[in-house]
């Protein structure tokens, strides 16, 4: 595990290797391309995706406590992982391939990855459908989301109750989100997907400004359908974050906190808030992963844990030092 950080490489050397000026030695090349680069990219992608999804969900649901993981993705992903690890149940076979691509060979732990992704999406869809059934208000989605999360939690705990110690260890390890699992190909694949999703999400900034300014009535009269906006944002955010979580496990906190930190810095205008959240999210995960990798080197603390340890107090400090500045 600790391999990524214990071997030292200086900046100049890295720059030269990336730019192709310097021929890397075998080990250095392997470390850089196979371990460090995917890790850094994954941290950036994960932080940005979770933060953007958080900002948009908080805005569209008018609730500052919502984050992509709390509204279905985390509980769905956990359920998917538990089913795969403990029961061996999966939506895809071990030799799964799609569009002629042999995913099972490209992606390590194919079964867990696809299962977490699929279940995260399924759970979010259930929440959206039930939320719509109850009424299309923001509150419906949140209440239904909480109920479904509890139900999922109970199922996962039942599974855990019957799990062997090895399965339990694997599941626990999965749940400690980490950006150190995927290889470069996987990370680039995630990057391409997010590259398509981000512009769509950022395009909603205007609509969110309308909603934040004058509420549902004002939005409708400005050509924005608040019900459709909420649904679209929930679906696309769930899609983006499910992809991340499938590869990294649960990286909490950043989706909740990054938008708030961005708000304190740049204000509520979603046209600026969304890109700023992405930047801060990426930075948070990157810093947390770096510190987690070096502080007890060669032991690596998972980024999910580091984020909460470092980010929690920082977030509290920001909130308390700039009271009244946030807006839900």
């Amino acid at each position, binding site marked *: 595990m600790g391999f990524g950080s214990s071997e030292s490489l200086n900046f100049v050397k890295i720059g030269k290797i990336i730019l192709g000026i310097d021929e890397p030695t075998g080990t250095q090349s392997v470390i850089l391309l196979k371990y460090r680069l995917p890790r850094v990219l994954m941290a950036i992608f994960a932080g940005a995706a979770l933060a953007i999804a958080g900002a948009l969900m908080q805005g569209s649901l008018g609730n500052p406590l919502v984050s992509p993981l709390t509204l279905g993705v985390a509980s769905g992903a956990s359920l998917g992982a538990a089913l795969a690890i403990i029961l061996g149940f999966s939506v895809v076979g071990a030799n799964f391939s799609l569009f002629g691509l042999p995913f099972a060979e490209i992606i390590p732990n194919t079964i867990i990855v696809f299962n977490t992704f699929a279940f995260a999406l399924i759970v979010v869809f259930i929440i959206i459908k039930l939320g719509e059934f109850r009424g299309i208000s923001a509150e419906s989605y949140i209440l239904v989301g909480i109920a479904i999360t509890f139900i999922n939690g109970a199922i996962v705990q039942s599974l855990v109750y019957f799990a062997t110690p090895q399965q339990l260890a694997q599941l626990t390890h999965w749940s400690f989100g980490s950006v150190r699992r995927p290889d470069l190909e996987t990370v680039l694949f995630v990057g391409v997907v997010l590259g398509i999703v981000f512009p769509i999400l950022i*395009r909603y900034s*205007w*609509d969110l*400004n*309308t909603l*934040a*300014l*004058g509420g*549902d*009535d*004002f939005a*409708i*009269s*400005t*050509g*924005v*359908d608040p019900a459709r906006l909420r649904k679209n944002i929930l679906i696309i955010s769930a899609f983006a974050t499910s992809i991340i979580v499938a590869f990294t496990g649960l990286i909490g906190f950043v989706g909740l906190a990054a938008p708030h930190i961005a708000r304190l810095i740049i*204000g*509520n*205008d979603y046209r600026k808030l969304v890109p700023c959240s992405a930047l801060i999210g990426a930075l948070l995960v990157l810093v947390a992963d770096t510190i987690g990798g070096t502080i007890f080197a060669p032991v690596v603390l998972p980024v999910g844990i580091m984020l909460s340890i470092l980010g929690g107090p920082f977030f509290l400090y920001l909130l308390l030092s700039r009271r009244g500045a946030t*807006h839900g």
Partner: protein
Amino acid sequence: MDDVTQRPNQRRKQSSKKQQPMIEVSDLSFSYGKNTVLENISFSVEPNCLVAVLGVNGTGKSTLIKCLNKINKIDSGTVKVCGVPIDALTINELAQLVAYVPQKVATSFPIDVYDVILLGRRPYINWNVSESDRKIVASVIRELSLENFAFRKFHTLSGGEQQKAIVAKAIVQQPQVYLFDEPTSSLDLFNQYEILKQIKGLVSDESTNCSAIVAMHDINLASKFADKIMIIHESKIFCYDEPRVALNSAAISEVYRVNAEVVISGTSGKPVVNILGLDREEKKYE
């Protein structure tokens, strides 16, 4: 359920008109749960017409306004804007035809007034704001003399300034129909007058053929500015006519339960309502 065949003389007026009505409402009903608010409302609004909607509190003035732009989903009936049923339009398409100004945009959301006004272009914007969008916004800001606070934060403005900014946003939307929901209720005399004058100016512009429907409380302000007055009473249209006809002491007494005299102003030629006292006598209406 075949309502169309039951109303043979409904088309009577249309042939003689030079243009189709801006708004055409037939048999509109709306209820909140079991509580019926509006029942079988039918009316139409001609181009360049300012309609003031009057009525006591809770009578459904605002509800009616919101039924015309899909904020409220009507139970039955049809609403046509420029001849097109609103059901056939998306919310975005409808926003290109109808602009709505709420009573008040109460917000702590910190956004520049300029950006608030620019939101009026939202129904036309695909990916990004174009140069022509910015030109339209700039010209409206100039027209309404909002230069002084165009780059201040919206939530720091006074009530009157906020309302003007929202009116500007509605104008920038370039609609055919303006809906105002008690736009003056939280404003002082000067601002009330100024806003209504602006609305009147929009409607009088012969080049655009716009119309406006304004829910309001001040009868005399309505009388002064409106081309037609609609009084909503007990879920129905009590009367819908020119101020001179609509505003009479019997109607005022019936709807508002006050004794009033109506005199025709010597200077404006419009009816002016003076409230003489409360109508304490129980009057049953059959």
